[in-house]
């Protein structure tokens, strides 16, 4: 698939496949298009060329009579329900408590009953270790706690794919671990995940595939241990020598 902003082509042909239960980590220098690629997966950015499909369904388009038709807003929204996303800057809803953040989409989008949603929301917050912070507003939580609420919020929609856009980049170093622990648990439970990250340790330990991107293209992809210890391309080697 390809993607351009105006005349600038930011994704110059990405060809990747993520299997169910697979954890794919994408690394690369800033401006390499990793985040843009991630945002294309749930149609926060539109794909300009090629095909991108999730669970066999084309993202953002419908193919009919040999032509692509853009999906309506409601159809795009329906597609996004299947895909959870966690942002670098958390993007929690600041006017709602942690629990209200988590139950908002199930109640408003899926039509789950309030009592049921609250029960499930509380269980999710417990799973990310925040049972005692349920009624706090985001500004009363640390960055690591906010990001864990954001993960619980995405999980509340019971997605089959989770996207992480540099989930630990805005955190103090000592708070990174608690977020990675939650993600590790998710991977262990068999969640399909695409993670844009700078945490090479996490990629090596948890990732099934490591993708190195540079300048809008995939330079190298493969087993994380392989890529990290024995990179095949000069560009990968130069990048890794700086970050490891």
């Amino acid at each position: 698939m390809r993607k351009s902003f105006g005349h600038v082509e930011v994704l110059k042909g990405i060809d990747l496949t993520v299997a169910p239960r697979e954890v794919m980590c994408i690394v690369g220098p800033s401006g390499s298009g990793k985040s843009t690629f991630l945002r294309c997966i749930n149609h926060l950015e539109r794909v300009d060329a090629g095909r991108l499909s999730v669970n066999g369904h084309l993202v953002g388009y419908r193919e009919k009579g040999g032509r692509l038709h853009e999906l309506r807003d409601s159809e795009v929204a329906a597609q996004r329900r299947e895909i959870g996303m966690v942002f670098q800057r958390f993007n929690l809803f600041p006017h709602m408590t942690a629990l209200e953040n988590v139950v908002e989409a199930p109640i408003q989008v899926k039509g789950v009953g309030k009592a049921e949603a609250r029960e499930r929301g509380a269980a999710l917050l417990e799973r990310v270790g925040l049972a005692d912070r349920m009624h706090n507003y985001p500004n009363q939580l640390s960055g690591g706690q906010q990001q864990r609420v954001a993960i619980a919020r995405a999980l509340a929609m019971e997605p089959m794919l989770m996207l992480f856009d540099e989930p630990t980049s805005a955190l103090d170093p000592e708070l990174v671990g608690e977020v990675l622990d939650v993600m590790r648990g998710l991977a262990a439970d068999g969640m399909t995940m695409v993670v844009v990250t700078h945490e090479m340790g996490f990629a090596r330990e948890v990732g099934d595939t490591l993708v190195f991107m540079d300048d809008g293209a995939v330079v190298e992809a493969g087993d994380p241990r392989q890529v990290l210890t024995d990179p095949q391309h000069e560009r990968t080697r130069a990048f890794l020598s700086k970050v490891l």
Partner: protein
Amino acid sequence: MSPDSSTTPAPPEQIRAVPVRHPGRWIAAAVIAVLAAMFVHMLVTNPVFQWDFMVDNMFSDAVLRGARTTLIMTVLAMVIGVLLGILLAVMRLSANPIVSGAAWVYIWFFRAIPRIVLLFFVANLGALYARYEFGFPFDQQLMDLFGFEADWRLFGFDGNEIFVGFTAGLIGLALSEGAYMAEIVRAGIQSVDPGQAEAAHALGMSRGKTMRRIVLPQAMRVIIPPTGNETIAMLKDTALLIAVPVTTELNFQLRAIGSRTFQVIPMAVASILWYLALASLLMVGQYFLERRFSRGFGNRETRQQRAARRARDVGSTH
């Protein structure tokens, strides 16, 4: 401080320094006290104020009815104005250039027209058309075209019945307010981090739900303070209803007493005090609204948090 360490040195002595003196404050206080005393002296000694007469007349039935009209008009015009403003702001931010352009034209027109001019115009719409009817556009022309002698109207009213008095005033003020509120609401919506809408979309929320549940509640924090200004401005602008004319309004009633009894100053002062009191009342409302929509932004404890903390405190004492 660890209690078991006998080797730690004694804590440093508490500082008792001479505070900096502020002679400027004392001089300013003295000057202002003298000016205030002069002002009070004038209020008490000048017989033109006629305080007894003012108090006797500023709570007459007609004045109280006028205050009620003024308050009701303020609240109704603001409610319609705010709803209109939200609609226009959303239209203005629409990706559809026709819708956005229409909102721009509305705001352009109604912000440019002085309220007193608008009120006078609305009050005379009965002279433009005697009867206003709503139905299928160009129905009579179309029927003529096909050779029928009929029309298709749903409802209608007489211009001279609707565009008078209170209703005319309300229409004029609300239409004008909608234009100002549209700009305030637009600023509020644009002040919300775009990441919020993105997060809502990523959860599968529709555009409408994202606006109602996520963006607008956060925009309210920015919208409320200038809306408070608008409400107080609206309270004062009800005095313009004389252009309609609406004579049951507060200022007209007070002035009427003043002109009838030739006691102009006492009734003008009464007017000042009335508007001061009503504006203060509205400010109390604004305070509570601001508190409601600042949830999650201050350090205020929520009810659940207070309950949880108390439960913890009780638990730890046992």
